[in-house]
């Protein structure tokens, strides 16, 4: 394509791009890299190699061809077809609802034989190229956020051919934040291009060193054949970033540990009631968690069916629903099974283990063996950058939720009417009965409370794990460990035990690997329990003997 169609593109009144865009494209066209593309910008777009195809996309985007946007859209939507066999000027087609059109001209053509054409494949690399091409056009948008996003995309692509474009945008940029990102993008592109004076390059290295994140580190490390002084600056910049990353890495590990601890705490809180307070070894505890997760799934389905507007808030309804469903199931289990087994731990263990298998297979029969699709709402996705930390939002919510659940549980036990009765019954059953407390009812309600809390844990776990019949199995061992380490019958102990286990696990993991970390943590546990059989906070006095 030569200058002729340039004229054509400006003359066409329906051409949607603004004059500014044309200027941008003109800037691009002045670049040596784009010179190839002037012949036929469509040459490489249907290449069978993803690499060549991605370059073809960029070439087409910056060629200024009026059909570029349409063809790129068609490509992205999988509607672009190419001639299958080698021939000069291979035709390109776009499939529309009404038949095929020529991709280069937009004119309708007779449908080609299906054996002669192939769909042009869109791989992720090509999609990325399309994204960047579109970002470049957003650099002059009115919206600050859009400009910033475009600048970030250009930084990530660090494409030297974008240099003049970035310089132009930088000259006119008012927003300091966007200007900073643009400077970084400029630095990246400049260093990548291998041009520029030594002073320019040193300044660019400084800009990237100031950004100090993994992307800038990656970029700096990829640079080769730099003058000695620049190379030295790069090396020290990388060392500086590494040092900073190491410090942030420690903080990050603590965060990972706490968030793992919060998950353990949620899973174990219910058990702290049934096992810790009542002394029932409930092997079906994990299945209560699973019940909660499946309740979440059902609630989400119901909401999707009846009021899609509340789609984002399904979890808020799922929490009380899971508490009620799992709690009711707990009461049922206590009344029909566990009350006949009080004081016989071995039989309880076997009976509840059998029960856990029954519940698993029941769910498998009812919902099928496959994982169920529990979606994460938008407000629980993504991450927040805090300095060098990446805090994932779903984990933050789970930490908050764990604290709320534990707080509510403690408040109930301390001040609530049910809590008072529970404490009375566990401390002195016969005295409590003599005072008019109906101990069998309290037993059932206590077990229901513990199960209900396990159900709420299931809502949280549905956000980070698979909702499958095996969900509970993965947490039952950890839950028991947390309760035992913390000290049976002590909620504060459960809190400290969970956080401690989480943090120890995450600090061992980077050195030992996930498999060995698990083993090491268990070995440490055995040693700990041998030293302190009562856990971190053993109950003392008369309560302990009751």
């Amino acid at each position, binding site marked *: 394509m030569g200058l002729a169609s340039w004229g054509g593109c400006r003359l066409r009144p329906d051409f949607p791009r603004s004059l500014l865009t044309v200027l941008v494209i003109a800037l691009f066209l002045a670049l040596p890299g784009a010179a190839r593309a002037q012949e036929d910008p469509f040459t490489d777009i249907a290449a069978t190699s993803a690499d060549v195809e991605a370059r073809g996309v960029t070439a087409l985007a910056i060629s200024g061809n009026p059909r570029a946007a349409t063809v790129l859209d068609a490509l992205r939507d999988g509607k672009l077809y190419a001639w299958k066999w080698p021939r000069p000027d291979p035709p390109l087609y776009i499939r529309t609802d009404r038949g095929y059109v020529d991709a280069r001209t937009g004119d309708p053509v007779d449908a080609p034989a299906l054996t002669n054409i192939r769909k042009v494949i869109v791989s*992720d690399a090509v999609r990325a190229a399309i994204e960047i091409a579109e970002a470049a056009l957003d650099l002059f948008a009115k919206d600050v956020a859009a400009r910033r996003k475009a600048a970030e995309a250009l930084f990530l692509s660090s494409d030297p051919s974008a240099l003049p474009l970035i310089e132009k945008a930088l000259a006119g940029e008012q927003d300091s934040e966007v200007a900073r990102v643009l400077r970084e993008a400029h630095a990246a592109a400049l260093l990548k291009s291998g041009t520029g004076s030594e002073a320019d390059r040193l300044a660019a290295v400084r800009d990237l060193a100031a950004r100090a994140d993994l992307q800038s*580190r990656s970029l700096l*490390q990829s640079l080769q054949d730099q003058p000695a002084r620049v190379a030295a600056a790069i090396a020290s910049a990388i060392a500086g970033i590494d040092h900073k990353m190491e410090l942030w890495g420690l903080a990050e590990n603590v965060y990972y540990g706490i968030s793992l601890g919060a998950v353990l705490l949620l899973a174990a809180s219910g058990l702290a009631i049934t096992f810790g307070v009542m002394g029932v070894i409930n092997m079906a505890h994990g299945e209560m968690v699973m019940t909660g997760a499946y309740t979440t799934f059902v609630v989400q389905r119901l909401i999707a069916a009846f009021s899609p507007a509340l789609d984002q808030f399904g979890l808020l309804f799922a929490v009380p629903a899971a508490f009620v469903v799992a709690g009711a199931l707990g009461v049922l289990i206590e009344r029909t099974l566990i009350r006949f087994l009080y004081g016989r731990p071995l039989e309880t263990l076997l009976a509840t283990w059998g029960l856990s298998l029954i519940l698993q297979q029941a769910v498998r029969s009812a919902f099928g063996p496959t994982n169920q699709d529990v979606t994460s709402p938008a407000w629980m996705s993504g991450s927040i950058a805090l300095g060098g930390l990446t805090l994932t939002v779903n984990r933050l919510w789970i930490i908050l939720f764990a604290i709320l659940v534990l707080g509510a549980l403690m408040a109930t036990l301390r001040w609530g009417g049910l809590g008072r009765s529970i404490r009375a019954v566990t401390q002195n059953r016969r005295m409590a009965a003599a005072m008019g407390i109906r101990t069998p009812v309290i037993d059932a309600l206590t077990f229901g409370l513990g199960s209900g809390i396990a159900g709420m844990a299931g809502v949280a776990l549905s956000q980070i794990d698979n909702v499958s019949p095996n969900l509970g199995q993965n947490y039952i061992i950890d839950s028991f460990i947390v309760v035992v380490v913390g000290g049976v019958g002590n909620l504060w102990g459960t809190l400290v035990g969970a956080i401690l286990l989480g943090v120890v696990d995450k600090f061992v993991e980077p050195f030992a690997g996930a498999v060995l970390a698990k083993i090491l943590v268990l070995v440490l546990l055995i040693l700990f329990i041998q030293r302190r059989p009562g856990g971190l906070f053993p109950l003392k006095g008369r309560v302990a003997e009751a």
Partner: protein
Amino acid sequence: MSSEKFTIDRRKLGLLGAGLAFTASRLDLMPSLIPQANAQTAAPTSGEPIKVGILHSLSGTMAISEAPLKDVMLMLIAQQNAKGGVLGRQLQPVVVDPHSDWPSFADKAKELLSVDKVAAVFGCWTSVSRKSVLPVFEQLNGILLYPVQYEGQECSRNVFYTGAAPNQQAIPAVDYLMDQVNVKRWVLEGTDYVYPRTTNKILEAYLKSKGVTDADLMINYTPFGYSDWQAEVAKIKAFGSAGKKTAVVSTINGDANVPFYKELGNQGIKATDIPVVAFSVGEQELAGIDTKPLVGHLAAWNYFMSGDTQLNKDTVAAFQKSVNDPKRVFNDPMEAHFIGFNMWVKAVEKAGTTDHDAVIDAMIGVSYPNLSGDYSTMMPNHHLSKPVLIGEVQENGQFNVVWQTPGLVVAQPWSPYLPESKNLIGDWLPPMSCGSYDVVAGKCLGTKKA
């Protein structure tokens, strides 16, 4: 698909050609073999049904993957019966449930072979279940058709491996990343059991033979059902910031995958930054999960449900009709059963009997159309020739094929990249008749056919 860059090098093409030529040359030998086999067992005249064993877990943790394979087998058997059965006799499925328990697999296999006297068994999923039934099949001289991609390093006379060997899945996937995506740094991330360990050992040797240094290679293992991926993903992210294109080759087992991809998404790693190519994530695993965090990541298989051949569309439609659920998916191991079952039918018809020895010999050289539009052939090493496809996960849980091998790839059950197996080949045709033949020493390391 034509491609400027063939990632199958000449050596492999040569092997492929040699394999095909070999089969072709042996095909005409077959008729002379079969009458001998026939002579031993008289063709059955009674209308008694032929029993076919189905050994897949219908309960327990593996039910998620294995239960659909039972459904596909029941459909195939029903279809064959509607066509008049085999040798004029109806087929009768015998379904047993080893409930995801490895020793049970051996017990149930024994039951199928010695009590029910089935003509063939279609079954197993995990390598450990296959290893546990292997002695049973060898002792009782049964036939097992094993439909799942696996780590290789095995070639039994009594097993037909209709899934992929490592060179039909893992190696082409790595080639794709190396040549098409220009990946220079590699993370081999796997669940801690035999399949990922062996596959990664092969991949490590392969990558090193291509000049990848230890500094550019990271190998991690996590326990089964791992769900707390925060630290692992952070490690991958840091590893990927060394200025070279990085990719993750994932042999992570089914259930741990969703939390893994979720964590990648939440920590802001997109498929364009660090692509993940998985060997255990297929349509079945994607069914019923939130696919948003996976979009754009890759999987390597020999079949994708999205393939647009007519045979594929018909088969999928027939399957969905047979289970009465238009949403059910069809995946690679199911296609393997489709091919394996039809090959077994052809072999029985060719042999004129269900006698195990005769059918085992008759299986070699049988060709049947696979659902991707080519003909797969049962090679003398009891593995299939297969196309290898790389697909990208799409929002609807299906795959968009981005690359495929220019032709079919012949399996190498013994990896040429591992020192202990580099001289071994498997060939169950005479004169070799050996599953592990050392071509340098010139002798058979395993048991020869009796």
